[in-house]
């Protein structure tokens, strides 16, 4: 015996209304996921810089006080400078001798920029002698993909993603001129750590650092320094795995998550209002139908069940259509927008997918208000004719 009111009849016979609703929901699904996809492209792209590169290389600049050099103890600036240099050389030698450290080079660095869809980050890379560059490349697992090795001063090898991101090419300038001088790109590197390296050329837009080539287990420079008897302070500059990791968590992960959540909430509020208004209108136009069902022997539960099945069909199709549209758009955006910008991305974010489905569930939950009001007000036809 047939015991249910068919939800398919409404869906099949009101294609225009239903498809408007399905397309609106599918586009909302797609928008929510694509916003997430684009925002998290930044997260993915910055991961190599913030989390991976510091596992291989760290930058240390210690104050004279940390190095144990007291200016008052020296009669002239030259003596003081010499004492600092001596202390630094000792520290470099000690760090070199530390387990997991393959080399320490005190050198100039150059600052490079790398921008995501939201936000931009600056990071330093070493300027080395042309003889030191192969060792650095080998340590960073970088290979020359195109171009040549630096032969003269002011020549740069850069990761292909960094070059794409900065719209730079071999033969072109690397970043903006520094004090009128520009570095020239001579080669493209392929690496997992956004590796850049070059030869010095007088002034740079960054400073001098002890560049520590380390392994992952010994990438915490505060600990390494402590191991060699140096207690670093807040006045020292240490760019290592802890520092970059902290920045990634604070600036990239947390800020992005907050922004994404805020966007999601705003979208849900607008979507919920739109859907509620549309559904109230849908149901108002169907009051006579519900009253007929009630009169010919279907209960309020049957009417409620039919409405809910209609909603599940509409939301179900919307999610499937939204997912298909999302995949198509992501593939297109990834290939033609993100890759040319040198950005890294991934398609599948299960936690965000669950968030969107939860948002749809909340909207279905909110729909219970007008549905319950309508169903509870369903009259039999005798009462309508009075």
């Amino acid at each position, binding site marked *: 015996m047939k015991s249910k*009111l068919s939800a398919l009849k409404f869906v099949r016979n*009101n294609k225009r209304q239903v498809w408007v609703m399905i397309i609106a929901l599918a586009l909302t699904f797609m928008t929510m996921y694509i916003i997430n996809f684009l925002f998290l492209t930044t997260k993915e792209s910055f991961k190599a810089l913030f989390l991976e590169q510091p596992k291989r290389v760290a930058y240390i600049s210690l104050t004279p006080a940390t190095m144990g050099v007291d200016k008052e103890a020296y009669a002239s600036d030259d003596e003081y400078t010499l004492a600092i240099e001596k202390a630094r050389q000792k520290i470099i030698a000690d760090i070199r001798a530390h387990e997991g450290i393959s080399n320490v080079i005190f050198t100039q660095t150059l600052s490079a920029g790398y921008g995501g869809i939201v936000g931009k980050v600056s990071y330093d890379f070493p300027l080395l002698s042309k003889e030191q560059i192969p060792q650095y490349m080998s340590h960073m697992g970088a290979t020359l993909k195109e171009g040549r090795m630096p032969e003269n001063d002011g020549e740069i090898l850069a990761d292909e993603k960094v070059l794409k991101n900065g719209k730079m090419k071999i033969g072109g300038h690397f970043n903006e001129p520094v004090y009128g001088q520009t570095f020239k790109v001579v080669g493209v590197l392929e690496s997992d750590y956004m590796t850049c390296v070059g030869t010095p050329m007088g002034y740079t837009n960054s400073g001098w650092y002890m560049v520590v080539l380390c392994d992952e287990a010994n990438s915490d420079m505060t600990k390494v320094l402590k191991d060699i008897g140096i207690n670093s302070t807040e006045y020292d500059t240490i760019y290592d795995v802890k520092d970059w990791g902290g920045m990634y968590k604070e600036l990239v992960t947390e800020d992005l998550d907050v922004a994404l959540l805020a966007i999601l909430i705003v979208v849900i509020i607008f979507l919920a209002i739109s859907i509620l208004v549309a559904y109230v209108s849908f149901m108002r136009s169907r009051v006579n*139908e519900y009253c007929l069902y009630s*009169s010919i*022997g279907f209960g309020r539960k049957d009417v409620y069940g039919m409405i809910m099945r209609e909603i599940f069909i509409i939301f179900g199709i919307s999610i499937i259509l939204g997912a298909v549209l999302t995949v198509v758009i992501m593939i297109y955006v990834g290939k033609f927008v993100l890759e040319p910008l040198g950005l890294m991305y991934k398609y599948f974010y299960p936690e965000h997918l669950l968030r969107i489905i939860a948002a749809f569930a909340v909207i279905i939950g909110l729909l219970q208000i007008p549905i319950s009001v309508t169903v509870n007000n369903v009259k039999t036809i005798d009462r309508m004719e009075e």
Partner: protein
Amino acid sequence: MFEIKNVSMIYDMDLDEKMYALNGFNLTLPDTGLVGVIGPSGSGKSTLMYCMSTLKVPTEGTITYNGQDITSISARQRETLRRNEFGFVFQKHYLVPYMTAMDNVAVAGISTDKDIKDKAAKYLMALGLKEREFHKRPSKLSGGQCQRVAIARAMINNPKVIFADEPTASLDHENAFNVMKILKKYSKDRLVIVVTHDRSILTDADITVEMWDGKLSNQALMG
């Protein structure tokens, strides 16, 4: 089939002067036949039909249907009764605007989908609709065709009783006559109760119940 005893229906119970739609009404009806309930507006004829069909519960009295007092059963039991045993033709056709004629008939069906479609087609055909009209929506059908679809919907479960409230009110004379012919035919082995204020459509009625002020009028039953 129906035994109505001392049934009263009072509206505005809270007022000092109560409004009796039915006032101590008594009536017994057989299992088959065409019963016409006639009377002027406000005489209580529609209220009587709604009480008999369980759409309303009377304030007082009992209505026994096949030995069961249907005034004291639960809302769910009343729904089941309406769905399985009764058919309804309302003053307006109340067809679902987005459904085809066929779907409008099938929507009330209680058997399997395939069976319902066959039955719906059979009834629509019997009621004079052409096959090409089965898939038309109510907006594409004439008033008479819509009312015939509504009658087919009332008949789809082969109910023991059909309640028809002013079924010809919105029809021209010819269509009204045709509808009554269909109901008369159905009443050969079922009970059809037609509420109307138009005496002319009840010429073929087996029983005519005339009402006045919620009671049987002096002429009461005419067989």
